[in-house]
């Protein structure tokens, strides 16, 4: 099925801003500072898959320190109280929230998977036959964080056909 992707960097950036305002930086003192560097490193990542009217993945990736800070903010904990499970749960929910909002901008008929969390770099992700089509890349209190969209190459080929 041929679809036109209607979600661009500005849309993603707006979603990211809402997530920061709601959970990670409600006081508005430490926003994600965009670097536009799509090759910035990551140590952990989470993702949700979208299938149906559009096929692909939404990936949240960051350094471990940023993930720990996100969990502390999300769960209202001190940094040194954050466990691996807290990090994993928070990363999963962040991917779910961004993915759900991306899905809402796609043509009707898209389905969202439950989130997957991998406490390893994004580069280790196994998304065969996909192409990165959009992303927000930045530093949060000096630590790398990114949110990116990966489209199935099947969809990409059909679009170009």
């Amino acid at each position, binding site marked *: 099925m041929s679809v036109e992707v209607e979600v661009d960097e500005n849309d993603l950036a707006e979603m990211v801003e809402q997530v920061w305002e709601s959970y990670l930086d409600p006081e508005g003192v430490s926003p994600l500072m965009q670097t536009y560097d799509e090759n910035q490193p990551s140590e952990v990542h989470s993702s949700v898959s979208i299938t149906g009217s559009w096929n692909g993945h939404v990936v949240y990736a960051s350094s471990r320190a940023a993930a720990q800070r996100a969990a502390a903010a999300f769960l209202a904990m001190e940094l040194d109280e954050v466990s691996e499970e807290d990090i994993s*749960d928070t990363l999963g929910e962040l991917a779910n929230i961004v993915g759900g909002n991306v899905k809402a901008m796609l043509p009707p008929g898209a389905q969202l998977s439950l989130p997957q969390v991998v406490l390893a770099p994004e580069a280790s992700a196994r998304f065969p036959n996909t192409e990165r089509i959009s992303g927000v890349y930045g530093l949060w209190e000096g630590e790398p964080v990114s949110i990116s969209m990966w489209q199935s190459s099947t969809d990409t080929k059909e679009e170009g056909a």
Partner: protein
Amino acid sequence: MTPMRAMVIDDSRAMRMILKRIVTKLNFEAVEAGDGKEALDLLADMTEVPEVALIDWNMPNMNGLEFVTKVRADPRLREMTLVMVTTESEQSQIVRALAAGAHEYVIKPFTEGAMIEKLALLGLVPTGANS
């Protein structure tokens, strides 16, 4: 006075913690469930039904929409206020949930203030509880 009770139903422990923190701040006693089925099982064992349930949509075993439908079909649970709290933000999904019997709809991400306002609109907390 017996505190009001809120049931928080979400497969994400992180989101349950956020919602639990908000309702506890509003003096609710919080009960947690990881999916719709677990929530129904807990409700079956309760002598007093919680005043409100905050319900995610996408959950394993039983999703939020199925839970709402089942609650609405059960006369014992009729008085419970149902609030969907979900990333499902398409108009058609919102209409489905409200048609199934949800009273309100909160889209993730939400701020604490926005959630409290919704609960105030439903008469579950005093207006101005957010201030």
